[in-house]
């Protein structure tokens, strides 16, 4: 039987000290997931304390939600049980910054922007987000978040070298290493990427870093139609260029951010290139030539602060917690099917009260779309369910998927958020093997785990 909040608070105070366990209203409200609040918030100071706590949680059958910096807690349905928010706010130490070997080992609660602060003087960076990112390293890992520069610099699965992870049964393990090439043993790190903390709490991470480019520019080009923008994107991808991003944005919602103007029905192409001055100049020139031949309406090039702002807006928009009047969906498809996916998403369904705003990574094949919900719509849940089912059925032919990233609670608790059952049985067996009491993030992961 779950102990009372007061008893639990006492136990956690004994474990972590009174200054690191709270049960008062303002503290627990800050750790709400949708309308669910924890009974107690606890903030261990070491990986060993995390492990000791998980062992207790497992024994007492507590429902635990690991919490980095809380930037993406809206992912997945709210937790089925939420006794303790396990805050990693004290696990923010940099354990080793080895600039000569381009690696960084830090505790999982460290914010990405702190990594930038540390590595920028040495002209290095961790390409998993923009320089001001509040997200924690562990949170990025648990949500499998890669930066918009993935096309050139690789994503989470390419940059992660090693982890330390606390398992619910009280084991503290290390996998991978601190070197960039490593095939010693099974690649266990992969099990925790995108697992939403369902199988263990990652307490420490090692990443490979990249060198900051000498120069970077962002080419923004307006096209009369999505089809023309898409054709230009394909031509850019097929040319001998090395862009770090090839993205398309909708006319809706992006006007304020773009250096070019967009009319309804138009689309803008964003090509981000970096490298030496000469190579950047060459790529921008070729990119512009390609766009001109695809009947671009207007083009502009951003650099410096303006480029950083645009980069930040793209990342923030993709990952931030949107307002409860929106439905945010992420679709994955092969790059050649991005246009088809946009065609499916762009037709605003009946439950929308305005145009759909989207951002499509045409290099990776990932589309994020936000649909403004009409709160007055009849039977909203059924409508959205039917719409989502239809999208998924049509994406299936193209080996694609659709995930609901954010939605009002009434929807997110009733929709099939992850939408995939492939291998769900295998996941269940893992869950029962490594978290037999279901302590971690119960009900939030794929297959209701």
């Amino acid at each position, binding site marked *: 039987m779950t102990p009372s909040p007061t008893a639990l608070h006492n136990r956690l105070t004994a474990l972590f000290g009174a200054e690191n366990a709270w049960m008062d209203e303002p503290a627990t409200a800050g750790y709400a997931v949708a309308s669910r609040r924890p009974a107690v918030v606890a903030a261990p100071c070491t990986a060993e304390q995390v492990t000791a706590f998980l062992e207790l949680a497992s024994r007492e059958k507590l429902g635990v939600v690991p919490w980095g910096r809380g930037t993406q807690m809206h992912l997945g349905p709210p937790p089925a049980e939420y006794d303790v928010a396990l805050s990693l706010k004290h696990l923010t130490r940099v354990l080793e910054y080895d600039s*000569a070997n381009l690696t960084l080992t830090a505790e999982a609660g460290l914010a990405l922007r702190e990594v930038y602060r540390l590595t920028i003087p040495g002209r290095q960076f961790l390409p998993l987000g923009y320089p001001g990112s509040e997200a924690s390293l562990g949170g990025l890992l648990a949500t499998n978040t890669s930066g918009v520069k993935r096309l050139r610099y690789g994503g989470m699965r390419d940059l992660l070298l090693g982890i330390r992870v606390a398992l619910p049964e009280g084991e503290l393990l290390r996998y991978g290493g601190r070197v960039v090439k490593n095939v*010693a043993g*099974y690649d266990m790190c992969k099990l925790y990427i*995108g697992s939403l903390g369902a199988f263990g709490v990652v307490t420490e991470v090692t990443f490979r870093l990249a060198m900051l480019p000498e120069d970077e520019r962002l080419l923004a080009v307006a096209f009369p139609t999505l089809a023309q923008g898409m054709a230009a994107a394909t031509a850019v991808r097929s040319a001998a260029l090395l862009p770090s991003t090839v993205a398309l944005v909708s006319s809706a919602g992006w006007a304020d951010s773009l250096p070019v103007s967009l009319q309804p029905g138009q689309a803008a192409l964003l090509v981000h290139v970096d490298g*030496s001055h000469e190579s950047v100049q060459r790529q921008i020139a070729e990119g512009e030539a390609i766009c001109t031949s695809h009947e671009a309406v207007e083009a502009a090039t951003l650099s410096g602060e303006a480029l950083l702002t645009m980069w930040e807006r793209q990342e923030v928009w993709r990952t931030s917690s949107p307002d409860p009047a929106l439905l945010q969906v992420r679709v994955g498809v092969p790059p050649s099917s991005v246009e088809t996916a946009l065609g499916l998403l762009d037709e605003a369904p009946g439950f929308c009260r305005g145009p759909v705003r989207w951002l499509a990574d045409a290099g990776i094949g990932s589309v994020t779309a936000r649909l403004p919900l009409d709160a007055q719509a009849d039977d909203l849940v059924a409508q959205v369910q039917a719409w989502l089912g239809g999208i998924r059925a049509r994406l299936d032919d193209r080996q694609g998927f659709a995930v609901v990233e954010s939605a009002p609670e009434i929807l997110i608790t009733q929709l099939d958020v992850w939408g995939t059952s*492939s291998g769900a049985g*295998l996941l269940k*067996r893992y869950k029962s093997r490594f978290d037999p009491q279901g302590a971690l993030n119960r009900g939030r992961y794929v297959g209701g785990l």
Partner: protein
Amino acid sequence: MEQSVLQELAAIVAPQPLLTQPEELLVYECDGHTLDKAPPDVVVFPTNTEQVIAIVKLASRHGVPFVARGAGTGLSGGALALEGGIVIEMCRMNKILEIDYGNQRAVVQPGLVNLHLSLAVADGGFYYAPDPSSQGSCTIGGNVAENSGGPHTLKYGVTTNHVLGLEVVLPNGDLVHFGGAILDTPGYDLTGLFVGSEGTFGIVTSVTVRIMRKPQAVKTLLAFFETVEAASNAVSGIISAGIIPAALEMMDNLTIQAVEAAIQAGLPLDAGALLLIELDGIEDGMEADAQRISDICQQNDCQNVRVAQDDAERALLWKGRKEAFGAIGRLTPNYYTHDGVIPRTRLPEALTRLQLISHRYGLRIANVFHAGDGNLHPLVLYDERDSEEVERVLKAGHDILQACVDLGGVLSGEHGIGLEKKNCMSWLFSEADLDVMRRVREVFNPQELCNPNKVIPLRGRCRCGAVTHDDTPDHETHEAVAAAMQDAHVHA
């Protein structure tokens, strides 16, 4: 092996023959790791996925161990039939099933030779990036099992960074699909877990890989140094200047001599070390980068820098690197290759320790390796007919790996653990770490028939550490696994 099993096996692959005669099996008693040998009872050559399924089901039913094998170029004994049984030779399943230039991917069978994929997509302007030195013979399936690397992985990553999806026959004969055509499908990254599992999780029957657009321009440089220390310092200098070359390879004097004797590329025989440096990408700015690299080499007491003037010269220089292992064969009847990784900046210390080990055991050690990512390849020269020398080679190998771990590195960068380094895993991992790896393996391979006794010592069979586990089967896991496989099968 029972005659009836052999008959069933023959029926599955007919009219392809089985190999069962001792002289036929000789080839299969080891792979590229020749210090350990164990012949299988039979070698079978499936030509399609259905046959692989049938063979695996047969083996599972009769409790016969089985090992998938590609070209047998592996260097850690991964394809060795340690407990006899069936070698499932995948080389007949070598077709390219699909090339999709628009999405920059290809679907291939596991027996396809690595280089053949690059050749097949060359006219389309593409190539397959992971390029082990054995790429003219090693197979994509073997690369998946070992998570193989190669010289160009410094910039482009190893096999796991280039595999999108897998079709796998699990050790009970079920066919499952991991990953697919796109990145980040929700749920576990089982593709990532499977790559590098060294044939212990199942047999791959189809692989979806990324193919990459050929770079617009390539520039290849050779820099000669008096000492390996000077060359190591140049390596650090290049990387810290913000240049990540496509490849950054080092050879020491012993290797230079062997390579020059083999290919006559005009390498200076008195150089203590050479760096083979390749830049690729956008043409604009490459000349400036090459000049910066040349300057950095000069600052580190470089004797001379040579730039390949044309494709023919570039090919010759790479031939020297890729065939360096073979060239070492001119110096010795046998050599033992290690594959430890260290942080790049510890190269000078590592090479000094290798020299000490060479002196301590009276063995010659040649070095040809991926300097850019700190992946050493010390080749210990010996003669297998001299059993006392073989003993010293093993001890030297032990010390080499220990040195890598001491310097903050790992046991293997691309050759795998296999049979060879299994008992050193406890240097890197605690018993609890290893036990979780075992539990993961049990989910895939509960009967331990699929490439048994590799990568991690079985419970209670660890020669190096304390025996803390018994061999009692874990019934709970086995039941869970049976159900899991059932589900995976349904959803596949």
